[in-house]
């Protein structure tokens, strides 16, 4: 077991190295290369100045050397300096990460809980009206762009009903230290709701399918024959067999979650990692862009890794193969 986990960890490590090489080489072959984006349309820059810049960025070395110096700096936690904000990338990421993780964490727990609940209900009432409603709801949600859902919530709750503010994480014009927790919460509700509503769909559909398989199994038929009622069947068989796969699916959902939060943050102008990523990409702030890409990938790898381990724990058949 420990050996299996170690092998998986090693694989994750090679994947991370591969990812950093991939990101680096993609950026390297791109026309959006640092010098061009940095100098931009400023034609008054002389060739000597550009040469100096190249030296400053270390661009006169070979790509391999550049990669190693970049990767070495990364390992020491040095992600470079953002061109847009003129502060170290690490500081920006640290200050935004909490906002994003609060958002994603809330959505993750809420969507996991309600998704599982809806899926289980749907399976237990298979073929009835409730099942049809839940199924229709989930399938429609899968086809709904998250940013549009966010906009609709914004129209209904902020513009029409005026229950919630239109954007940002705190009221405008108030110092960061004076922002009340209630204000933060007030600005937090809609983005979190958007992310949660959408996350429900996949987990609900998956749980429903899994639960139906369980309910069709012979041991459940036997349990029915012994006279267990619906609740007992759910408690004794359905729940135990479906909760771990559902949790592992929810861990594998980290990537979608991050993508969703990029869009939700954009809609609500919520200052988290996602909206910073969008700004960095649009304004050509390479160090910041790469920093956030790597952090978000690390996040997704962690999720996939946990899902993998959970699957191995749950299903002894997977243990045989790696």
């Amino acid at each position: 077991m420990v050996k299996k986990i170690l092998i998986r960890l090693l694989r994750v490590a090679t994947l991370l190295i591969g990812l950093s090489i991939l990101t680096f080489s993609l950026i390297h072959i791109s026309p959006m290369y640092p010098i061009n984006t940095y100098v931009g349309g400023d034609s008054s820059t002389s060739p000597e100045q550009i040469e100096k810049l190249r030296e400053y960025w270390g661009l006169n070395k070979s790509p391999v050397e550049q990669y190693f110096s970049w990767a070495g700096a990364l390992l020491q936690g040095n992600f470079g300096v953002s061109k847009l904000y003129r502060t170290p990338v690490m500081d920006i990421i640290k200050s935004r990460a909490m906002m994003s993780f609060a958002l994603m964490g809330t959505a993750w727990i809420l969507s996991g809980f309600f998704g599982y609940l809806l899926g289980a209900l749907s399976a237990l009432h298979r073929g009835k009206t409730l099942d049809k409603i839940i199924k229709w709801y989930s399938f429609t949600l899968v086809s709904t762009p998250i940013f549009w859902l966010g906009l609709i919530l914004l129209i209904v709750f902020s513009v029409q009903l005026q229950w919630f503010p239109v954007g940002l994480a705190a009221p405008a014009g108030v110092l960061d230290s004076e922002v009340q927790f209630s204000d933060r919460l007030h600005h937090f509700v809609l983005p979190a709701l958007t992310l949660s509503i959408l996350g429900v769909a996949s987990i609900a559909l998956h749980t429903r399918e899994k639960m139906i398989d369980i309910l069709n199994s012979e041991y459940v038929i036997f349990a029915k024959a012994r006279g267990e009622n619906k609740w007992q069947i759910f408690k004794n068989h359905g729940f135990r067999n479906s909760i771990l796969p559902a949790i592992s699916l929810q861990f594998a959902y980290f990537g979608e979650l991050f993508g969703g939060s990029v869009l939700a943050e954009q809609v609500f102008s919520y200052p988290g990692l996602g909206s910073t990523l969008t700004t960095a990409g649009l304004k050509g702030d390479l160090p910041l862009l790469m920093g956030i890409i790597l952090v978000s990938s690390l996040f997704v790898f962690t999720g996939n890794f946990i899902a993998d381990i959970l699957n191995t724990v749950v299903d002894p058949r997977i243990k045989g193969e790696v």
Partner: protein
Amino acid sequence: MIMTRTEHNVRKKMLQLLVFSSLLLLLLLLLSFILSDENLRLSSAGKNLPPSLEHLFGTDWLGRDMFTRTLKGLRLSLAVGAFASIMSVIVATVMGICAATFGKVVDNTVSWVIDLFIGMPHLVFMILISFIAGGGIKGIVLGVSLTHWMSLARVVRSEVLQIKHSEYIQISQSYGKSPWFIARKHILPFVLPQIMIGFLLMFPHVILHEAALTFLGFGLSPQTPAIGIILSEAMSHISTGKWWLVFFPGVLLVVVIKSFDNIGEQLRILMEPSSSNK
């Protein structure tokens, strides 16, 4: 096999749904060609009109008819989506078949690459690719095509592994046919249905992601009536209560995506009926 009445009805209902979804998409596509660009001309008289019979989706702050804009935007999204899906399917097929036929080393490499591509959040990866491609429609197409092939590649791989050791392929091998011949004549026809359905099921995702990318502002210029751009422009007008700018284009987008999803799903069930009772 005797077909009971309910089974018969289920099949009939599926076919109806299939035909309905296809006709709806066809109608929207036709409309996008029929509606003239005249409706997109700026008019000071018809600014900010709420939806009416004359302007089904209302007009925007420049007096352009939103129904026309939405349909033309959807057409562009569909074109980009179709192209990107085809590219993804090609990548997926090549990767899947290679992984299954060329031995353990290739197989491991491909699965490593798949894990690598899955490791970066989908949207983030698309942003990165469209960023380094320098934006534009090229960036969007590249970004979307390079990030959607992974799951289909896995399906193709397992399908191929299934038939690799079947008798007719072994016989073909013993006749001295080349691996290339076997891949082309025996394996490709076998996986083709899977690939087609994979394409149809991938399509809605591709359109969704393309809309998301353009919504964030990567790629197309603001003049292009792509669905994401229409929505991101409308975003700055919702605080003044012009809800129709956001509501209708989005609804139509959801309808289109759901129709494609329906078509793909129904075809999948028709081809492998055993999964229909899910």
